[in-house]
């Protein structure tokens, strides 16, 4: 497994987490609960953008592994 595909896998995983967090941040009935999920959502989004940036560099450096 190349580094690129590993990063991609983690990225996909994190995106899944983000979407679930988003559902909970809307669905929660309690203000406190919603805020906690909202904060978690924002942190996850930051991590995702970091990884996406890394992904871009990786794809630039090793274009043979571009795409899936």
């Amino acid at each position, binding site marked *: 497994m190349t580094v690129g595909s590993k990063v991609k896998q983690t990225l996909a995983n994190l995106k899944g987490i983000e979407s679930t967090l988003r559902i909970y941040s809307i669905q929660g009935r309690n203000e406190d609960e919603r805020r906690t999920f909202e904060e978690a959502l924002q*942190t996850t989004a930051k991590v995702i953008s970091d990884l996406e940036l890394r992904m871009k560099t990786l794809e630039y450096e090793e274009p043979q592994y571009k795409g899936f």
Partner: protein
Amino acid sequence: MPNWIMILLRSSILFFLTVLLIRILGKVSPSRMTPFKFVNYMVIAFIVALISTNIIINPILGFIALGVWTLYTIALDYLSIKSKWIHDLINGKETVLIKDGKVMEENLIQVRLTGEELLRELRSKNVFNLGDVEFAVMESTGEINVLLKSDRKPITAHDLQRKVDPKSEPQTVILDGNILDESLSNMGLNRNWLDTELQKMGVSLDNVFIGQVDSSGDLYVDLFDDTLQVPQPKVKELLYANLEKSQADLLSFALETEDRNLKSMFSKDADKLKKVMDKLKPYLLR
């Protein structure tokens, strides 16, 4: 008019009248009544029985008695809400039986309770050791309530200084295979959502006996067909596991890379995720 018609008429009228009267008199259950309230209800019951079986021959007299007993009760109830003095006069005050872990013998005599009876009452509250009791009080209904010493109390999340998922009451959305629209809309959900959830589980609506939605919007179902295994909601546990996995991935990226900037970026991200996990833990794992 023959006697039997008379009794039939009286009984039927009184039957419905009594249902109405008892409803008006309030919701106190017999076991939690003060002794006076109990007598009150008994008298009303006797008067009704006597009128209904034609022992009180003149029904008007009977109804007057009935009216007095119910109206006075309602009036006294109302007054005791308004005035503490009248409340204490009618219902009596609570009596302290154990204070600072010591039995108050004079108060025991005052409420005519023997030591054995006190112990029995404590046992029925699951307290077998008198030494565990800090404070016990006999309410005006005769019930005994117990406060345990603070180191004997069951432990709570507050004692552990741990945050827990603030759960509100679940809503029952399916009963006997019927969708309850009102509770669904209370949760801000609709039938479409329910259909999708049931489809995800692979269960048809008419097979569901009870379906409940908890405060975070997860559906729990009990089926008529008990041989079917239903997947119970595990979304939250899964989410936590995924977070853990991503965090571990980031850590391994940080270890693998040679680039210092990247190393610090990955380890910072891993730290961030770790913090998120700690924050979400009470909500996701219970």
